[in-house]
């Protein structure tokens, strides 16, 4: 395979993913995923315009009703419009997912860079991270939510904290392997300072895996939020999220499955898309796989 002209093959592979017959199957999944995700994000962003009702407005006489002209997807146990809640719920769920991903990636990146480069800090940081990893994340999350009350922020924090050690480990491993690269050694030889090498040479190497990791964190944060709601430690019902809509609806699973079905569908489609895009990003960005494709 060494015989292949590298750049040409890579281009061919890349464009092949979209245009060429042999590659079309590769491209369709991510394309659909991207479309679905865009639709979900748009529907969440424009929820106030799209929602037929105030997602909090209750009508005790209209509890658990089926779909009708007024309530396109029916109502929940408080007589609130399910469709409005699912649409609005997307906002918070996505916010929690994206927020948790960004926060844990940023914090993890900083800690990981430091840890990957300074031996002394490394020993201490990694012990701490091991400890954090050892605590089962769901339990930690419940405890944290109990600590601060179930606001969006504490749910996000609860999801973020257990993810940080994973990000740190990822960044650290990338840094540890990248610092052996000759171009990093060349930079040392050129007299570049450690922070500069760390930030300009090593950090960019972590971006690709971090983007991938970020998508997974985002997906799992949305899911964890749902599980926390299920266990009674989620966000208040005043703030609809896909998770707490489902958690409230689970009691009625057998008599009114739509309460779980619709938020569940949105949640699953969303996570499915994010994961698929994450996988695609990984395949595109992973230099080892790329080499093989070339």
């Amino acid at each position: 395979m060494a015989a292949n002209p590298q750049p040409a093959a890579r281009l061919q592979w890349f464009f092949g993913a979209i245009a060429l017959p042999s590659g079309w199957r590769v491209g369709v999944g991510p394309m659909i995923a991207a479309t679905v995700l865009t639709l979900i994000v748009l529907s969440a962003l424009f929820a106030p315009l799209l929602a037929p009702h105030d997602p909090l407005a209750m009508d005790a006489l209209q509890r658990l009703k089926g779909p009708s002209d007024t309530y396109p997807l029916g109502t929940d146990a408080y007589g609130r419009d399910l469709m409005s809640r699912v649409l609005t719920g997307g906002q918070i769920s996505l916010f929690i997912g994206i927020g948790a991903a960004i926060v844990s990636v940023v914090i993890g990146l900083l800690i990981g860079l430091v840890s990957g480069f300074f031996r002394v800090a490394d020993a201490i940081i990694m012990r701490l991270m091991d400890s954090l990893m050892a605590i089962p994340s769901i339990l930690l999350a419940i405890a944290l939510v109990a600590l601060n009350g179930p606001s969006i922020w504490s749910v996000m924090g609860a999801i973020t904290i257990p993810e940080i050690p994973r990000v740190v480990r990822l960044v650290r491993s990338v840094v540890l392997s990248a610092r052996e690269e000759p171009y990093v050694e060349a930079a040392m030889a050129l007299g570049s300072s450690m922070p500069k090498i760390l930030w300009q040479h090593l950090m960019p190497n972590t971006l690709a895996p971090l983007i991938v990791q970020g998508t997974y964190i985002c997906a799992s944060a949305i899911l964890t939020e749902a599980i926390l709601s299920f266990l009674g430690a989620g966000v208040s019902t005043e703030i609809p999220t896909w998770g707490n809509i489902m958690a409230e609806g689970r009691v009625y699973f057998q008599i009114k499955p739509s309460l779980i079905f619709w938020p569940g569908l949105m949640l699953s489609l969303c996570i499915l898309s994010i994961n698929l895009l994450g996988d695609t990003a990984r395949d595109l960005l992973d230099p080892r796989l790329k080499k093989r494709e070339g």
Partner: protein
Amino acid sequence: MKFKSRNFDQASNVLEITGLTVRLTGNDKADPVLDAVSLKIRQGETVCLVGESGSGKSVTSLSIMGLLPKGVLAATGGHIELEGRNLLELNAQAMRDMRARKISMIFQEPMTALNPVLRVGEQIGEVLDTHTKLPAREKKARVLDIMNQVHLPDVERIYRSYPHQLSGGQRQRIMIAMALILEPQLLIADEPTTALDVTTQKQILSLIAELQEKHGTAVLFITHDMGVVAEIADTVHVMKLGRIVEHAPVETLLRAPKQDYTRQLLQSVPSLSPRAPRAMPEGQTVLAVEGLQKVYGAHGVFSRREPTRAANDVRFSIPRGRTLGIVGESGSGKSTVARCIMRLIDPTEGEIRVAGKEIATLTRRQLRPYRRHIQIVFQDPFRSLNPRWTIGRSLIEGPLNIGEDKQAALARAADLLTLVGLPDDAVHRYPHQFSGGQRQRVAIARAIAMEPDVLVADEAVSALDVSVQAQVLDLLDELQQKLGIAILFITHDLRVAAQICDEVLVMQHGHVVEHGTAAEVLSNPQHAYTRALIEAAPGRSWDFANFKELQGA
């Protein structure tokens, strides 16, 4: 130089390839990877397939084995005939039956070509499991027998060993044993000695020759090393960009190459005769190393490992404008010395004086001002440039560190690129847009940008094709003359050392065993190890560039 000169006109064809064309799958417009390749191999014959990287040698061999990567490459035309059957038309099962029984293959990297988690005896035995139904005892006996035939020591122990417990040469012997245990008609050897030290290479080459003789096997030998070709080939095929441009019996080809490409290829092969010694310049010493020592793994509470002395009492000095070569096989400690001098690793003991300043014990921060005096060029051109940075950014990294103005540095970067023979608009481009040789030029330009006194070239041309290698060596020579830099040249290749070095230092197991001018060391070696090294160099008595025997050899 004595070439093989058997006549194969009467011998029967083992394999005949006609008009083999291989393309990237799903892309008919791109140039084919193999374009109508034809060649035949007769019984007992050794056919060498030479060419530079990307010429299609490996694809040819994989096509014969039916091992082209699925979904990436596919044979679209031609025949590969063995025993009257077209291998391209066989189904998967029939093709599997052919492998190891009729055609075998050995690969370049014996480290990666053996499964690291299985015992080697088992891996050889697997060939028998797959193709025969021998009882266990008999099977083992046959495995041990072939292991003896490839001259492995202590076969019972090695039988139970894992690949990582063996040396490179032993692993390659295992590969050969595996390939030959069923006595196939054809052995394909794809650069089987490239990853090995010269002394080991010599043993493996003679082993292949010996077994070939014994079993009457035909060998398709793929290599880029003309020296190896001269040693072993009956017939030589030269490949370029997927085509066979010339083929002839070995002596004919080396003495009277017809094609320009072949001539150019041969002319690029550096000669083993050392360059004429240059006058000792009066310039001051720019790098002096005294009693340098590096010990690994000396401490650790729980570790019981013996410390390794990677370098021991190394001393030398280089004056301005001169080139000192450190030669030695892998593990000799030559790279450790280079990295200690660069302070990429910290020496355990010793002095390193750069521009008159002792730098061995400076902290990283203290060291920074002295970095500019000594720069390095690494072996792997693909990894020594940050792939995310433009060439320009890489070039000005050092100058910016020593406080140069960015605009000025960029302007100078463009000049430097011209100096190393690249277009000056390359500053805006990225490393992947350049070939290996071009990247190595960029790496050299980056080092030169610091205006160093000493340039350390750590196997800087080893990864390059011979033609490119020659150009880069010329460039280094030119720069040295223009700028008067001292060069510390680290290489395992005696030919290269002979071409460029004024002085040579031979290392073995971390010790310097010989030190002298290139002419002394290479023409009149004193130490047994040096002599062994020289004797192992393939084709050492042939002057490839001039198509004749080497004078005075």
